[in-house]
């Protein structure tokens, strides 16, 4: 199918500098009941968690369980 790009601000932001997935952590990915977080390799070759699918429930275990407080769940504009 032809795919289009629609701009949207995703709620979950991960601070790459704080994320320690390089050391094997995948806690946020594992606790998300919606299966929307993934690990990706960044441009400089390190890895980080990020929000892949924009289907958030705003339940927040990802933020609460991240050992380094790298995850923030924001309320996006359409929910305000």
């Amino acid at each position, binding site marked *: *199918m032809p795919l289009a790009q629609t701009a949207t601000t995703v709620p979950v932001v991960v601070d790459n500098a704080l994320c320690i997935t390089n050391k094997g952590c995948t806690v946020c990915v594992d606790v998300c009941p919606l*299966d*929307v977080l993934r690990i990706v390799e960044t441009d400089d070759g390190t890895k980080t968690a990020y929000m*892949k*699918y924009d*289907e958030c429930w*705003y*339940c*927040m275990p990802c933020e*609460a369980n991240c050992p380094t407080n790298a995850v923030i*769940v924001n*309320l996006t504009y359409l*929910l*305000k």
Partner: protein
Amino acid sequence: MQGDKGPVYLKLDHLAEETVAEIERGLHIVERPTRGHFHQGRGTDHRNQMIEMHISAIGVCAGDSASGIFVDKHARTTIPGLYATGDMANVLHNYMLGVFTNGAFAGLDAVDYIADRDFASFDDAEVERVRVLAPTKRDDGIPPNQIEYKTRRLGNDYLQPHKVTARMALAQQRLEEVREDMENGMYVRNDHELMRALEASTILDCADMAGAASMYRTESRWGLYHNRVDYARDDENWFCHTILTKGDDGKPAHRKQHVEPYIVEVDDDEKDAYYKQRASASSVAAE
């Protein structure tokens, strides 16, 4: 809500601070952790104003309604060996505490049930595999999020109270079309989308059941939740459970079941307590 009498509000601004704080603790921590952030972002506070409410889910779960998968006091469903507890079982206000307690009853009963039993054979496994994997076998088609969106849209716009018979009939017709699209055209590209495809199919089942059950109960009951504009409350014919099953044609079938007497004696003037929780627009305006 969508009618000319709306909106509907949650009114807490007449309550004592400690009561509001306790309710907020439930709403903002247990129920939905982002709800406090939401009110902060909007600058709304239960303490000094009424908060507008809206219904936005196809309600078959028992957490907030009186419906759900039928279970007995051991949490047994009508299928031997299958149990249901928590929000999806027809145990009123089941929530977390309810599921822990009722889950324990289910577990104890299940231990006895399986004591001398081997695994059952499952004849339909192959049929089920074909159904589940069908969206992975196509080269193109409708993404599951669009099936889900359309289903929810129809549910929200056509099936929610105030319930209008003609509107619900339209929804049933449109939902049948969505089912055809889903069964013949849904397309997924990866395991995440396959999971969403299964959810879309479950949500559609819920919408179908909600519509069918609402149409069957030709009266109004439970305040707003089953307010059918074409019918008044009718205790003589409808003081009963309605049981929805899968009919021989695969479509929802219905029957009535009588309500067991209360286990704890309830005073007559308490039986309608549910209806007295609500403040009418005129009583609020008079304050």
